């Protein structure tokens, strides 16, 4: 083998991993990193999204965002989704604990609780539009229990966000539940037996065995709840279009960018949203150090 052949071969060997990585990296840079950088840049301009003039306005968009109460109120809306997310985690943990032990019709209950997560978001929107109609399902059911009033569940600004956040609860409970269930079942069964011999009741087991055992999953679902409540879009958009005070951050950003052509302002909003999500993730990592994922 000549020297030339040898260097040729080792060059090929060295470039092999890159042959497999070139397409994934191209996608990664094109659809994740470039948008993030562009967005930071757009947020400092007054660009409308298509015209050639892109005037540099500095922090003006950010100032507008934080000083106009109508733009800022979307954070208040997020709190409803955050609250429903917390309830969702507690319920998911309860049902996961109950269903990881012997229960009759266990698979049926599992299936029922999880199924909503698989349902199309637009279909869910329509199902609940029908559900919340004045004189509709919810009012009829409440009527069976003696409450005869009809409510504008989606039309009343005091109720609309509770109604929408409860749809989120209905939709995502199953995912959390299945994650918790999987984690609980990966705890070896002998531990429970040992605990039972020591006289630990179910509550002790939850407190001292299950919770510590599934900590990584709980913290993962906490971060999903936070970022999910900030980026709520489908359900409120499909059901109310953001009317009656139900506009969320993403609905507002989409409207600013694609209806009012304020790409600069919308980008600033998106940067703020991204910063909050990253901050939340960072805080969560500080509180619960990552044990699970190691890629190296």
């Amino acid at each position, binding site marked *: 083998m000549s020297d030339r052949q040898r260097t040729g071969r080792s060059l090929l060997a060295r470039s092999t991993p890159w042959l497999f990585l070139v397409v994934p990296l191209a996608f990664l840079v094109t659809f994740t990193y*470039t948008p993030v950088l562009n967005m930071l840049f757009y947020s400092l301009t007054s660009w409308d999204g298509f015209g050639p003039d892109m005037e540099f306005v500095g922090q003006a968009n950010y100032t507008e965002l934080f000083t106009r109460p109508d733009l800022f109120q979307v954070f208040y809306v997020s709190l409803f989704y955050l609250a429903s997310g917390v309830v969702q985690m507690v319920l998911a943990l309860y049902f996961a604990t109950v269903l990881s032990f012997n*229960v009759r019709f266990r698979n049926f209950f599992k299936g029922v609780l999880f199924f909503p997560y698989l349902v199309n978001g637009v279909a869910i929107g329509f199902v609940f539009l029908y559900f919340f109609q004045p004189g509709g399902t919810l009012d009829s059911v409440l009527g069976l229990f003696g409450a005869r009033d009809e409510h504008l569940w989606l039309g009343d600004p005091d109720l609309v966000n509770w109604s929408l956040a409860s749809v989120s609860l209905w939709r995502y409970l199953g995912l959390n539940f299945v994650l918790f269930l999987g984690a609980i079942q990966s705890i070896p069964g002998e531990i429970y037996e040992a605990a039972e011999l020591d006289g630990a009741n179910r509550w002790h087991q939850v407190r001292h065995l299950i919770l510590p055992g599934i900590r990584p999953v709980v913290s*993962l679902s906490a971060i999903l709840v936070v970022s999910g409540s900030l980026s709520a879009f489908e359900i409120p958009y*499909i059901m109310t279009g953001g009317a009656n005070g139900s506009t969320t951050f993403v609905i507002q950003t989409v409207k600013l960018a694609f209806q009012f052509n304020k790409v600069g302002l919308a980008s600033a909003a998106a940067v703020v949203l991204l910063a909050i999500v990253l901050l939340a993730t960072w805080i969560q990592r500080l509180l619960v150090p990552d044990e699970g994922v190691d890629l190296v």
Partner: protein
Amino acid sequence: MTRQVRGVGARSAVAGKYLSLVVASVLTLLPLAVVLMAALKTESESANNGPLSVPHNWFNLENFQIAFTQGHMLRAFGNTAFILVFSVTGTVLIGSMTAYAIDRFRFPFRRLTISLFLLASLVPGVTTQVATFQIINSFGMFNNRWSAIALYTGTDIVSIIIFLQFMRAIPISLDEAARIDGASPLRIYRTVILPLLRPAIATVVIVKGVVVYNDFYIPFLYMPSPELGVVSTSLFYFKGPYGAHWEIICAGAVLVIIPTLVVFLFLQRFIYNGFTRGATK
């Protein structure tokens, strides 16, 4: 005496457990059940009877027929299937190739590459759409099914992590044996690694398939033209003309839910496993 008291306590605990499960199931199923009933009602039944009343004829499929034809559901299912096949295949290829390169090779900038993928997973897609839109537009992919395919295929960190987990379980000695037989890395990837990754592929297909079938945001933003309507957007636009005809809107919703229900009933176990693996590893 104490034993008796404890017996009563235990029994009421069991009753409470079942009661909570039944209540949760009713709350989950009720909204779906009334929509199914509404879809089977005639126009006058729907207008005059409450939502909890049962349909007169349980086999009245007229509303489904209207929803299917007027909602262009055939086209919608076709578009969704097209996007689904390419996005899922793309995700499997990209994820497995990335995992193969990262797990089986040692090369300069390997750590940096890994961190780039990991860091990207922290950026929620919805936050960057304003700028992503400009990129798709500059490629001329706006109002084109390839925009959705490109964005779904993008880089799905969850699938990369799933593939990495499974890749580690495949003994390196298999690679080496193949290499001694003169197989190139590409051939090893194709004939040794990919077949052994089958369980991981099944997981990724399920998780990604659910996401793509149900997504509304990307088709809504990037493919507004009616001919490109997928299941989500077609159903969304369908509502407009039928404003108050709830029996027909409900039929449309049921049409979209049925395929999910069928797949779920057949693949239940795999679906649970898919989501547990997809998120926790």
